[in-house]
């Protein structure tokens, strides 16, 4: 279970959030550009530090301003799929997926077995030797996800995972993504602009406005509320 109760001064407003996500549940985070969605992911991942508050995963504090705990990102065990995928362009598809295991100094033969398993599952084994920059958009998305899942994360963060794909590929990838997240069985936060993602992938949704929770509920509730609001309608 992920517990977040933090405060962070951003450039234009204060980000104040209190969220709990159970294991195997997916929270869809929606809101206008610059409302603090990606900032929240970065704070949870440890790439940025909250001004105060607490972030805990399965009861263990990742950040606690009172107890002066701040676990660095590399020790948090969080799978993060970045909006731009952030694949390492100088490495092959195989090396990108193996990266997280190599940082853990896992023996090469064990890495080989695990990477093969993940690449097979994602249909990427045939392109394993290609440079990450040379594969298609859909393949990049799968590599980014496989790279995040192979480290057996305790939490998954996905920042607009489908936004870089064309519309035809989005529907297929949305189904694949949903299955992968379900199989992983950990809490998950997905940032999206697309209300179709909210309905098809989320267990519940949270609408952020200027760093605060404007609405929290099941996906349908947020959509229903959003359809009556002009600015939220623009999320499409």
């Amino acid at each position, binding site marked *: 279970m992920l517990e977040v109760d933090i405060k962070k001064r951003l450039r234009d407003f204060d980000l104040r959030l209190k969220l709990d996500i159970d294991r195997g549940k997916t929270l869809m985070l929606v809101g206008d550009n610059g409302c603090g969605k990606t900032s929240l992911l970065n704070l949870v991942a440890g790439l940025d530090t909250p001004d105060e508050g607490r972030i805990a995963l399965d009861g263990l504090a990742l950040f606690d301003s009172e107890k002066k705990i701040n676990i660095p990102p590399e020790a948090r065990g969080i799978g993060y799929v970045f909006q731009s995928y952030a694949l390492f362009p100088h490495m092959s598809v195989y090396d990108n997926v193996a990266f997280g295991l190599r940082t853990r100094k896992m023996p090469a033969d064990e890495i080989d077995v695990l990477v093969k398993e993940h690449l097979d599952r994602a249909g990427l084994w045939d392109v394993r030797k290609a440079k990450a*920059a040379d594969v298609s958009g859909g393949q990049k998305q799968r590599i980014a996800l496989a790279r995040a899942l192979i480290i057996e994360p305790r939490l998954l963060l996905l920042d607009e995972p489908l936004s870089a794909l064309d519309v035809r590929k989005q529907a297929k990838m949305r189904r694949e993504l949903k299955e992968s997240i379900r199989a992983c069985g950990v809490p998950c936060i997905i940032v999206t602009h697309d209300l179709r993602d909210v309905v098809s992938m989320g267990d519940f949704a949270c609408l952020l406005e200027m760093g605060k929770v404007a609405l929290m509920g099941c996906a349908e509730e947020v959509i229903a509320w959003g359809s009556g609001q002009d600015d939220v309608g623009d999320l499409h």
Partner: protein
Amino acid sequence: MSGDSNQEHKCIGRAAAIPSRSREIALKVCLGLLLTLAMAFIALPVIALFFRSPLDTILETLRDPVVIDALRLSLMTSTITTFTVVIMGTPIAYVSARFNYWGKELADSLIDLPVIMPPAVAGIALLVAFGRMGLVGHYLNTTFGISIAFTTLAVIIAQVFVSSPFYIRQARTSFEDVDLSLENAARTLGATRVYTFFHVILPIAMNGLISGAIMAFARSLGEFGATIMFAGNFQGRTQTMPLAIYTAMQGDLDVSLCLSIILVAFSFVVIVLVKILTRKVYKRC
């Protein structure tokens, strides 16, 4: 009526098109001439160098002990300088590219200063800092008995001083070009800052770093003003190739021409290498 107006319109259009086309041709001719002149201005002195020195004279001068000493010293000092600049400059360039700290503007300006500082001024500045009577040199001399000025070490210090900005500026740009999300991705995957630096940032920035190092090496090889002021002009100890060219000019022109040709050939290789290396950039993905 409307037909007349159309006709008139066409005429105006054609009348306007003719001068614009001839203007374009005139512009192209002017630019072509300018480019030819500029190329001739740079190429002519280089060609003249080769004309004045037949190959057999070059080969013969290459056996001259003055030339051999100057070549050996120049290559040795420039190599040591380049290693020093790369080892010291890489972390400085990375910090400058990624972090904001108090006084950063001042530090960055100070790093760039030797590029615009006249080399002779750099030489005097080094002399009053590290010379026997200098600010630090006096202390080094009285406490440790170390004297830097007019030694091979002084040559290296002068070269480091003038060539370091060439590396640091290029390295800083290369590090700035590495997408921050790649560093963040590596960190979330379990990599420490050091692991991320060596396995993600450094390989991506490598071409830029190598081309910066080549520029620094070339600048060290051509260094003259600061060296002659701070290190003097002693054969085998501080007389690098540019200093030997200057000295030979007063006696044997063949020696100075031979050394010049070696430096020109080397500079050309450097430019080609830098162009090839900076062309290869990783696609963002």
